[in-house]
């Protein structure tokens, strides 16, 4: 009981000290909100992005034509395609952030060329991740291009084009009104005449477009309201806030060693682990308070962020805070002076923040950086918070990021506490 009381006293002391440091309080509480606001406004409905787009593809048609189109999509340099059996499976991957979009070749998709010659629109459906709107634009352009190239190739090959037209005549059969059948036959004859002369590339998109690409934004399971840009930037703001809390507490701990207050604490009848636990608890309380402030702002009508589940949000937030308590302890254990730890801490945290997607989403990074991102706690913080705020993560999906965050927290705290050097001399 006495041990717990000592830890609480030390934690309250640290929270007081952090609150009274105006600059520290700004970076802990105000900066995350400003970050979310600024970048939320900047990226509302737009964004910049390059590189390949990761696409989940479901072929519900399973015809020769659709298979050929799947092969064409897979061969595109602009896309990285993974085939899934069902829409549910593909959507789930988009929800988890593993894929940027889901494209479905619906039943009846068939061969785009024959579909078009029959006078129907080539129909594709899909779901895109709202945090990847820039990629969505790239995806749409690429898909249109692929469809037209597919059709162009078909009509560039005279034999395939004749086969398509024969198929069309057959499909028209006897059901079509005689005048329509005659007109189509006349048109097809004309085309055949052109083909006989070696003509190709007959198709051009009309104003309405011969291709229908129906993409919807991924929405959470229980609600249909669109996800705002702020829902995407608040998790990033939280990550920056956690960084400020961790760095502030690291510097406070090392500063206590430099100033000599750590010696006075060491000479009280409490264990060193209690002193460090008090520091950790202080950091945790400040971090949780920062998250609460952030969620409070996010809830304002202007931001319009409504988490799926407040319980899961609380769980994800606490896990994120625990991870950064471990990060705090580790950073404090490197370096002897405040200046050394500040320099080291800023450098490491900044690199981890950038690598973990706290500034630029991981999806825009090259492959090797995406792999590196896995070791950054920021990446898991953002995944957990994205998950509960708008991806509709359930407890099971939250297990992995939260487990990793708790693991980072525990390992970081134990390793950091083991390496941290207490003062062994009264400082002069």
């Amino acid at each position: 009981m006495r041990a717990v009381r000592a830890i609480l006293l030390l934690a309250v002391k640290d929270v007081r000290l952090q609150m009274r440091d105006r600059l520290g309080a700004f970076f802990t509480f105000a900066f995350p909100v400003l970050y979310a606001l600024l970048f939320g406004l900047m990226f509302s409905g737009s964004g910049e992005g390059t590189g390949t787009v990761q696409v989940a593809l479901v072929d519900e048609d399973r015809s020769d034509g659709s298979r050929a189109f799947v092969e064409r999509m897979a061969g595109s340099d602009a896309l990285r395609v993974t085939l899934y059996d069902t829409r549910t499976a593909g959507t789930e991957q988009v929800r988890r952030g593993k894929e940027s979009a889901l494209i479905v070749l619906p039943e009846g998709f068939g061969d785009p060329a024959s579909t078009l010659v029959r006078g129907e629109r080539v129909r594709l459906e899909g779901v895109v991740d709202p945090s990847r709107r820039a990629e969505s634009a790239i995806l749409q352009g690429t898909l249109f291009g692929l469809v037209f190239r597919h059709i162009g190739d078909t009509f560039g090959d005279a034999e395939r084009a004749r086969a398509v037209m024969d198929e069309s005549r057959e499909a028209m059969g006897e059901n079509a009104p005689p005048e329509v059948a005659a007109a189509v036959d006349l048109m097809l004859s004309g085309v055949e005449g052109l083909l006989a002369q070696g003509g190709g590339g007959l198709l051009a998109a009309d104003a309405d477009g011969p291709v229908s690409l129906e993409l919807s934004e991924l929405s959470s399971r229980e609600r249909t309201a669109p996800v705002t840009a702020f829902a995407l930037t608040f998790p990033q703001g939280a990550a920056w806030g956690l960084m400020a809390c961790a760095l502030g507490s690291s510097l406070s701990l090392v500063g206590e060693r430099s100033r000599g207050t750590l010696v006075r604490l060491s000479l009280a009848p409490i264990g060193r682990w209690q002193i460090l636990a008090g520091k950790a608890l202080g950091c945790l309380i400040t971090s949780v308070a920062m998250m609460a402030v952030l969620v409070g702002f996010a809830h304002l009508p202007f931001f319009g962020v409504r988490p799926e589940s407040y319980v899961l949000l609380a769980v994800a937030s606490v896990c994120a805070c625990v991870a950064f308590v471990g990060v705090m302890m580790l950073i404090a254990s490197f370096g002897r002076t405040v200046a050394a730890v500040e320099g080291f801490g800023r450098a490491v945290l900044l690199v981890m923040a950038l690598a973990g997607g706290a500034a630029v989403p991981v999806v825009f990074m090259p492959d090797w950086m995406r792999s590196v991102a896995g070791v950054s706690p920021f990446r898991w913080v953002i995944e957990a918070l994205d998950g509960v705020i708008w991806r509709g993560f359930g407890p099971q999906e939250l297990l992995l990021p939260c487990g990793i965050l708790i693991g980072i927290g525990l390992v970081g705290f134990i390793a950091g506490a083991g390496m941290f050097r207490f003062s062994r001399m009264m400082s002069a």
Partner: protein
Amino acid sequence: MLVFDSVSKSFGGVRALDGLSIRIEPGEVFGLLGPNGAGKTTSISLAVGLLRPDAGRITLEGIGPPHRQAARAALGVAPQSLAIYDDLTARENLELFAGLFGMTRRERRGRAGELLERVGLDDRAGHRVAGFSGGMKRRLNLAAALVHRPRLILLDEPTAGVDPQSRNALFDILRGLRDDAITVVYTTHYMEEAQRLCDRVAIIDRGRLLAMDTVGDLISRFAADRDPEPDQFAEEPKVAMAGAGMNAGSRSSLSGSGRGAGTGGAMAASGSGDLESVFLELTGRTLRD
């Protein structure tokens, strides 16, 4: 109360303490004097259990080695670097440290109030320490060392960088501690302070004990027939100027309220030598920094 028995301590190749033996009696004010690098801070760090000796033994009466948890309640420390939180108020600082020693909220409040009054900071109890003068911080640093009513208090240069008024206030507090039969170990560079306050002093240099006795006996043995230090002013301006600068406050305070231990005061009054002469006689005049 506190016994150093042939204590040695080295850091790398540097021998900070070399077979130091000191016995500090209960209730006395004991001065630990020495030039920079003599081993004073190492001795205090060993006395409070932050360090452990390489050889020899340190014993706190009735408790054993000072690194034991039980020793924490008996020891109070006022480090030279101000071990208080600038962004907490004076009262918050004291209540925090009192709480760590297991006091209840009510006890903490009461003890903090009592100490703030004792060190003359009761009117600034709710103010942040960051706005305090050097002397006020020193007084609060001392109060923080007393918060758990220790039997032995170690003061590492408690008057460094304070004005004469604060120095006098600190002396009054120390006299109060003596009246309460609290044992005080006091390190300082100001010989006048030691002469005025200490019952006995030990002069150490390069980790070794050079002399240990009452101030009067030391002066009799080492400096009785020497002129007091002001004569050195012409001889070695650099050292003497530093000494004069350091002494200014003390000298003015000496003429102020009361004398300390009768021995030191008597010797100072006799004009036949002082502790500084003893100190220089034993440790030499070579600059150490």
